[in-house]
């Protein structure tokens, strides 16, 4: 085997954070090399250095036996290193075709060759078994899962020798991951080297040849995958801190209806949804990408149109809008963290306090900063948000920590109903179960949790009842205490 990439003593710091500390690493040609570590461990920083988006403070890199120091991402792509970032980088107002070809548009003397462009896009999508995505669709209108596919297609169009994937499956359902894995294995067989970042250990063991663990910016260990177990990896990741790994026992639901959906429909996306949701209940909604689960969640908050049917809140008709939902004590954590969940340029503190701000004031609207700080501090501790200070702007946090901020701000409100869409997406295994504990605690206090998630184990572990959507309709409502993964999975396929 030959070494395609080697890193020597790479360090990088940010104000108040040593993100990478003297990393030395070798990656073998044609392997799938996984990178794991807790939120904020430095994984994305390392990938950004490889892709030319960040420069290291010190150290050197060798790619294909030549010194490698990309000045910017386009230089890295020319050298054959393509990257799919944790945060998707797409042009929302351009078509699928344009997005897939961006930066390498086929042309004759500068005149766009639209036909080749379309062909390339179509074949890249076909390679991903995703020809169902219309080439002319605007990317902004696609779902997160579909956008992810566009990102991968984008990388496939270039000539890439090393493909970096930073949490590509965070937003995908268990069953949607399989085609992606097949693609990745295919690419490997064609000799492409893969660097793969993920929090899902199951994936790592299914896919990787070699795994490297980062902890607080330091490289802990690099090992062949068959020489480690998930427990060993978790130990390395968390610095041997004990972590929870069991779902809390579910508590009893109070037979008092808080929310009822009657014949709720939205043009073609979901149809005739009837549900009765109770106090203290955790209700799980799942389904494949495109099943309408996210849109149903959005509709309940007024972020997706309802064409017919009605929502009743405590028996009273309720016409959803974010402001009305807020005054009715409904909290909503959206799916697309970066675009909808956090205010990137504002501090961690302000982000967490934002929905509670009007409760933290004195006449005539002056903010009580001490209370605001307390509230934020509590959220930071509860969810173990890694930040140098409460004043840090959210853009500077790692992806998983941003996700935690977007969750913390809703946990901090006194919401009676919490609508959480993919709440643990991108959150490391060490903290995931802390979040499950919190959800459980809230439900024990009589709060209602609507949990929209594509992670079936999470849904089964937490929900009292599980609503499975298929093609916009309720395929099954399963008892969370009786069902199993297989049954839920079957239902997501309409069986």
């Amino acid at each position, binding site marked *: 085997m030959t070494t395609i990439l080697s890193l020597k003593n790479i360090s990088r710091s940010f104000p108040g954070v040593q993100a990478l500390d003297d990393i030395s690493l070798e990656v073998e040609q044609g392997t799938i090399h996984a990178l794991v570590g807790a939120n904020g461990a430095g994984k994305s920083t390392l990938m950004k250095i490889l892709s030319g988006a960040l420069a290291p403070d*010190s150290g050197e890199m060798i790619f294909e036996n030549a010194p490698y120091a990309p000045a910017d991402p386009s230089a890295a792509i020319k050298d054959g290193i393509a990257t799919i970032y944790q945060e998707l980088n797409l042009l929302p107002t351009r078509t699928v075709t344009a997005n897939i070809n961006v930066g390498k548009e086929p042309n004759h003397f500068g005149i766009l060759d639209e036909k080749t462009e379309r062909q390339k896009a179509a074949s890249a999508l076909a390679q991903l078994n995703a020809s169902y995505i219309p080439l002319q669709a605007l990317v902004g209108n696609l779902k997160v899962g579909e956008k992810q596919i566009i990102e991968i297609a984008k990388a496939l169009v270039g000539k890439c020798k090393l493909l970096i994937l930073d949490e590509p499956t965070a937003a995908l359902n268990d069953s949607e991951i399989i085609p992606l894995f097949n693609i990745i294995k295919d690419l490997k067989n064609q000799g492409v080297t893969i660097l793969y970042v993920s929090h899902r250990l199951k994936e790592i063991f299914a896919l990787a040849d070699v795994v490297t663990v980062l902890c607080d910016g330091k490289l802990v260990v690099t090992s062949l995958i068959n020489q480690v177990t998930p427990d060993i990896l978790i130990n390395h990741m968390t610095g041997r801190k004990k972590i929870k790994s069991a779902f809390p026992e579910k508590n009893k639901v109070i037979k008092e209806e808080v929310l009822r959906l009657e014949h709720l429909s939205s043009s073609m996306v979901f149809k005739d949804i009837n549900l009765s949701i109770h106090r203290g209940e955790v209700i799980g909604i799942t389904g494949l990408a495109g099943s309408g689960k996210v849109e149903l969640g959005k509709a309940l908050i007024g972020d997706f149109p309802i064409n017919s049917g009605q929502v009743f809140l405590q028996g009273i008709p309720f016409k959803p809008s974010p402001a009305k939902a807020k005054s009715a004590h409904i909290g909503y954590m959206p799916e697309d963290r970066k675009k909808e969940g956090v205010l990137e340029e504002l501090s961690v503190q302000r982000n967490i306090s*934002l929905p509670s701000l009007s409760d933290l*004031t004195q006449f005539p609207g002056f903010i009580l900063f001490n209370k605001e700080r307390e509230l934020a501090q509590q959220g930071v501790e509860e969810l173990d948000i890694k930040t140098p200070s409460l004043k840090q702007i959210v853009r500077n946090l790692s992806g998983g920590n941003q996700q935690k901020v977007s969750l913390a701000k809703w946990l901090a409100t006194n919401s009676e109903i919490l609508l959480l869409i993919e709440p643990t997406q991108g959150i490391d295994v060490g903290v995931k179960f802390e979040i499950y504990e919190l959800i459980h605690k809230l439900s024990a206090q009589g709060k209602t949790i609507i949990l929209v998630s594509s992670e079936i184990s999470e849904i089964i572990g937490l929900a009292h009842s599980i609503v499975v959507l298929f093609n916009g309709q309720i395929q099954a409502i399963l008892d969370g205490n009786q069902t199993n993964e297989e049954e839920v999975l079957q239902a997501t396929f309409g069986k």
Partner: protein
Amino acid sequence: MRYQRKNNSQKVLQIIGENGYIFIFALWFIFLSFKTDTFLTSQNILTVLRQGAIVSIAAIGEMLVMLLGGMDVSVGALLGFSGIVGANLMVDFNLSPALAGLVCVLVGGMIGLVNGFLVTKVRINPVVATLGMMTVLNGLALAWTQGKTVAGSQLDSIAFLSRGYIGSIPFSVILMLLFYCIFYLILNKTVFGARIYAIGNNEKASWLAGIEVDKLKMLTYTIAGFLGGFSGLLQVSRQGSATSSMGNEFLFPILTAVILGGIGLSGGKGKIQNTLIAVIFLMTINNGMVLLGIPLYTQDIIQGLILILALSLDRLHYRNR
């Protein structure tokens, strides 16, 4: 290739970059202090501040709107038109100065409300909406005055606003500082301020967090209108008259000051005190060149160059990765 830690000169450059225009301002200030005998006198400094008062008060409104991610290019025309209405009511209808002043401010607020309505409910791009408003207002101003200057002894009663002194301090300077203190508190200490920043930062996320974005935007455009109307009143007081074109000279310095002060065009970021400093900087550019006896056309060139230099330094640190 080896990467090196950032060296010291890069760090200095970064610090300068982060405070770009303030740095240039400081250099310019020191230069003028040594080069002329007249610049660093309390008399001259107060003159500079007084010249800045009207621009700076209207600039608060523009700043609020731009913090939201919007823009109001009608601010000059709004200022001029409200001033004309106020002056006209005093001169031709003998309305009491207090009442006419109030109407003047209210007219500004009404126009701001219409701007806000166009931007939020009709969903017209802010630049286009307020550009349209600007044209309408300029036309109305001409029609109202029929091209004549509105002047009369009645306007003497408001002269104090712009030209009066309390002790040795111009009253308009006191007003300016008062406005900046009030809006500093509003922006930094109140929920309303926090929400303006939130919306400018990420409108969708703010909306989803339950903030009534449209209402808040309309309110902000209206406040900007009030401030513009009040500035119009100050301008009438300063000139002792009103002309249909008197608002025109304001748009450029207001926009420049707000942008120079670090309010990005996409909103959500920036400090109100920097807007004030930027206005004063702009005023010292003019003032300094007059003191230096630089010919008029050269003044324009130098003014433009200083602005570009300050803005480039300001953007410099964004490149640092």
